[in-house]
Structures are given as C-alpha cells and as structure tokens.
C-alpha cells in the first residue's frame, strides 16, 4: 500500500512537472528561411496545406505526366535547404525541425533527395552493375 501511494505520488509529481514544462512552452522550432524570394503561397496557407498541395501534385505529375506545377518538392528543397548543411533535414533543417516539434513523421526523404542541387555519382553503381552483368546470364 505504501508502495502504491509512493508510486501515485511519483506519477502525480511527474504530471505536474510535465505540465509545468508545457506551461513554460516547448521551445518552438527555429525555422530559418535563408532563401530569398517569395513562397508559392502565404506562410499560413503553406503551414496548413503543404502536404495536400504536394500530395495532389505528385499524383498528377507521376501518373498523368503533368509537369511544372507550382507545388513541387524539388522547389521546396531548392529554396529551403540550409546554407550550412545544404539539406532540409537535420536538427535545424526546415522540414525536420518543424516535423519533430509537431511529432509528424515525414517519409518523403526515404526516396526524395533532401539536399539542394545534389548530383549522384552513379559511378560506384556502374562498377557494381557492370560486375553483375559480367556474370553472363
């Protein structure tokens, strides 16, 4: 019983402590916008809707071949990649900082390139693939 009380007290204290942190405010992400120029829409609109804009655009672009629309993930990266890391990821990265704050997992970068103007070498693969091809079918 004593143990249970102690546990409860501990939990309550924990809750109070965490409430206190929240009251003080979880530090907001430092969204640094280094690129000059205008975004494709107002910041409010982008915060609310960027995922829908990109989600619809990706289907049109991939499935229907409609290119050159306003919303584009490459466009986001070109403007918003950090000047120091070259990427939208990383602790202070444009995408990652905000997504970490809002606890929303972002899967885009498993396939998409988070660095601006990145050029893959492709050479290592060429050697590997050529090796594999060398073993004739």
């Amino acid at each position, binding site marked *: 019983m004593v143990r249970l009380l102690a546990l409860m007290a501990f939990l309550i204290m924990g809750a109070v402590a965490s409430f206190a942190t929240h009251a003080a405010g979880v530090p907001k992400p430092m969204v640094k916008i280094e690129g000059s120029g205008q975004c494709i829409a107002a910041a409010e609109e982008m915060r609310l809707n960027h995922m829908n804009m990109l989600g619809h655009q990706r289907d049109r672009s991939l499935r229907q071949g409609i*290119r050159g629309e306003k919303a584009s993930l490459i466009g986001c990266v070109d403007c918003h990649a950090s000047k120091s890391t070259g990427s939208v990821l990383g602790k202070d990265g444009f995408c990652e900082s905000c997504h970490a704050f809002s606890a929303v997992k972002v899967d885009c970068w498993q396939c998409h390139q988070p660095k601006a103007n*990145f050029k893959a070498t492709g050479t*290592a693969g*060429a050697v590997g693939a050529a090796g594999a091809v060398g073993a004739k079918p």
Partner: protein
Amino acid sequence: MTEPNDKSRRGFLGAAAVGAAGLGVAAIAPGLHLIEVSQASAPGKGASSKVRWGMLIDTTKCASDCNACVKACNSENGISEVLKDPRQASQWIRKIDLKDAKSGITHSLPMMCQHCEHPPCVDVCPTHASMKRADGIVLVDRHTCIGCRYCMLACPYKARSFVHMTLTEQNPEVPRGQGCVESCTFCVHRVDKGQIPACVEACANAEHNAMLFGDLNDPNSAIAQRIAEVKTTQVRADLKLNVGVRYQGI
C-alpha cells in the same frame, strides 16, 4: 487517379497497334488520325495518348565490350549503391551477350523494361502502384508500392529490381528508396522536357548509335520510319504484350 487502363480503350489501341506493328506506316490509315499525332507532351498538359514512346535497338551496331548505356543509366538515375550481394543490385538496364548454339553467331544487346502495351506487372499489382502512362511509359508509383514484388515475378523480361538498402544518393528528379520495386522509366523526367533517355544519348556519344528513341505513333519520326523499312523483332512476341522496345538484327 486516372488509370489509362479501361477495357474499351485497350481494345481499340490493341487493334490499332497490331496493325501498326505489322505494317508500319500503311496501317495508320483507317483508325488513327494523322494530324493529331504529336511529338512531345506540352508543358502543363501531361502525357498524351496520341504518343507511344518506344525504342529501337540495332544489335548489329551494339558492341559487346561497351557498357556506356548502363553507366549513363546509373549516373542519370542515381544508382550508386554497391550491395554486398551483387545479385541484389538494381539493374534498370543490363547488357546481354547472346550466342546461337548452332551457327555460333553472337549478338550483344541492352535489355531493360520493354514498356509493354499490356504490361503484366500492372495487371498483377495489388495497389495500382505499377501503372502505365497515357503515352505508354510504364512506371512504379513508389507512394503506393508496398514492395510485394509480384510485378517482378510477372515481368517476362526480368526488368524489375527491388531496392534492398537505405539510399541517400538519389538524384532530385529520380526519387528511389528502400522497400520499393523499380525499373527503367525511359528517363521520363528527361522525356517530359523534350530530351532523349540517357542511355540513347550515351550510345550515340560512344559513336555506336545502336539505340533510337521516339514516338512509334508518329509516322514522321525516325523510329517509325525505320520500323517501316527494316525487319524488327519484339522479344517474346508470342506473349502479345506489344512491347515498346524493338530489336533489329536478332
């Protein structure tokens, strides 16, 4: 999401294409509208069903010691990773040497996704990730691919690869990643800009000129004219998939 896949359209195109396949330009007479046949898709308009992108590979010009197309493909599409087991390496295009057992005559040729008009990979895909664009280019939509690999089994040309490892070297215009299946895209990101696929360009730069890319539906295109002139072969034509990649000299 639009799927250029419905039965009636397929039937019509299938019939037209069988004619075109057999007779080249002459077959364009009854069903197809010549004037509407256009070259590249206009910006903002998207892929057009009037276009059918295709490739013609002249095996008599392809050199067996040349790998230029494979290298160009790898650097264009960011295939840089080296796998411990080379059998797992992504191959969007591979070089194959053929030898006729009786005559001993040899051929060398590049093999890749044949961009079938009736693609088995699309038929079997449980999530509609495998899809064909209106202009005949067959793609994997990685947003919905679950990596089940049915399409790899269904493809008669062994054209698809599964990405086995985490990737970081993607080119911005060619997203690709672990857990999805991929294959030759005809360099769709270049074609939509009016350019030719990287392999075709590399083959020309290597002065072999064994690859020709263009619109099979446009009777004025170099590829359609060549197909009308010389005997070309669809690999495994017996499967009646009406592939977009044809070979000359095999």
